[in-house]
């Protein structure tokens, strides 16, 4: 990065750290923070949308929709979220590949699950074996976003259902006595009012979302945990670094990063809720 870094005598000086911390690997490490932050920012609105659909579905009068919604809303209460993070990406991947396999290679009649293998014809692979690396990483990132959105959509659905129930009954009754239709009651009364009650829960959900981002590592994405492990270790599968095992410092750095993000979000949400409470 810097000119003086080419000088070997610098190795013994403190200045060396400025070279070390700006090496190519470290730049990838810093970029992976952007991956985490972009995941949070993309997932939050999608999961809010999923949560909205889930909670509205669970209040529907159509019985099938109602029970699907209720199942979606309540399933995260009994099963650890990490099970979903392991289950959803592989499931979506297999569903996509299976349907592509059925469409593209109809001549193969054998079952796709053969013994301990999942075999689809090579044209149905997702992404294709011949695709460049960036398509592979984008695909796995999209799968990660989808699984985070589904899990956090279920959490949001919980919060939003609670908030809808918290809207005072008298307001709904008043709206009905004015002759509003069911849709009007939802659009004009329940949904605008609901936000007020949902905000504490949603701010909490934002914290949960931040705190679950390290699980990206389990989905095989080169996120901050991956890089902390990779750079911090004294040797990887390919390289041997001249420094001893520094993983502890890298992980403590991540800990501080997460504490900072949590603290900042806490302050921001306090400001928002003060504003809303002031307005009402």
């Amino acid at each position: 990065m810097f000119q003086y870094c080419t000088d070997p005598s610098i190795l013994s000086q403190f200045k060396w750290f400025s070279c070390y911390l700006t090496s190519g690997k470290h730049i990838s490490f810093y970029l992976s923070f952007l991956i985490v932050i972009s995941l949070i920012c993309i997932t939050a609105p999608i999961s809010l949308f999923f949560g909205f659909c889930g909670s509205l579905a669970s209040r529907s009068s159509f019985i099938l929709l109602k029970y699907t919604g209720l199942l979606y809303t309540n399933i995260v209460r009994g099963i650890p979220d990490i099970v979903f993070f392991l289950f959803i990406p592989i499931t979506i991947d297999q569903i996509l590949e299976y349907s592509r396999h059925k469409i593209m290679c109809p001549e193969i009649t054998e079952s796709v699950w053969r013994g301990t293998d999942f075999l689809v014809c090579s044209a149905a692979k997702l992404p294709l074996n011949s695709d460049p690396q960036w398509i592979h990483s984008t695909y796995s990132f999209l799968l990660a976003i989808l699984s985070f959105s589904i899990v956090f959509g279920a959490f949001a659905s919980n919060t939003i259902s609670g908030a809808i129930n918290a809207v005072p009954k008298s307001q709904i009754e008043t709206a009905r006595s004015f002759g509003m239709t069911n849709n009007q009651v939802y659009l004009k009364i329940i949904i605008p009012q609901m936000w007020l009650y949902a905000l504490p829960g949603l701010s909490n959900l934002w914290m949960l979302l931040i705190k679950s981002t390290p699980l990206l590592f389990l989905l095989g994405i080169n996120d901050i945990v991956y890089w902390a492990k990779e750079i911090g270790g004294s040797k990887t599968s390919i390289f041997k670094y001249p420094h001893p095992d520094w993983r502890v410092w890298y992980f403590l750095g991540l800990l501080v990063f997460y504490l900072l993000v949590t603290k900042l979000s806490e302050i921001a949400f306090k400001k928002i809720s003060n504003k809303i409470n002031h307005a009402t």
Partner: protein
Amino acid sequence: MSCLQTISDYGLRSLGIGERLLPKTDITICEQFVLIGSGLFWNIYFAIFALSIGFISAISIAIMKNSSNRFLSLIGKYFIFIFRGSPLFIQFFCAYEIFVLFPKIGIDLNLIFIEVTLETRWLTRAWLGALIVLYLNTTAYSAEIFYEALKSIPKADIDAANSLGLSSKSKFIKIIYPNMLRFSWPSYTNEAIFLFHATSLVFFSGFPAWGQSGDALYYANYFADKTFNPFIPYPIIAFYFILLTLVIIGLFGIINTKLNKHLPSDLKSKTRIKINFIR
């Protein structure tokens, strides 16, 4: 191979007892059920020990945070903030790397009468190392719950206790502690459920599963990797977890009715699963 044979082979596999080799080919549903079920031993072990030790220290941390001594209250506050504000996953990694740095042989502690050897190598094993992390984590979460409950104890109750001339010790035992427990019990139930769920993170977070003896999710993941069919092992583990979550709700519900038995039935607080407590 019959299912009974499988149970005797793999029923205690998570403890390292039984058949050493995990099934590799022709994996039956029975094998998946038995192995994943045997892995539950570790989830239950972590949950019971972390919760029961954490309960006591959580109360002390909550009292510290609530105390008028600024120094103590700051310690309580920061302890809670650090463990609630950071991901459990990162805490596991940090703790493991710190534990690895300890000398392998063990530290001799020369207490005046006896010499104790602290086996530091156990710290890098999941049964102790991960338990310590889970214990500190649940302490912080429960301490926050108890702290909120301490703040909501009616002033009048404490005034009444003071005017009766109760000593501070009996004031705590007779007035503050039961009320705190009663107010916080529904939230504490949630904390117990989600701590139980969090135990499934242990073997994915640096702590190695020695001799392939891991928890339920470790085996479920093993089967999903081996068979490339996630539709059997994950629903099995989901079934087990839902079952045990219902058990927790039942057990804590019994205690809840005990705590509230002096109240008229319409004032009793009900336990609802809220999701604020997942990590």
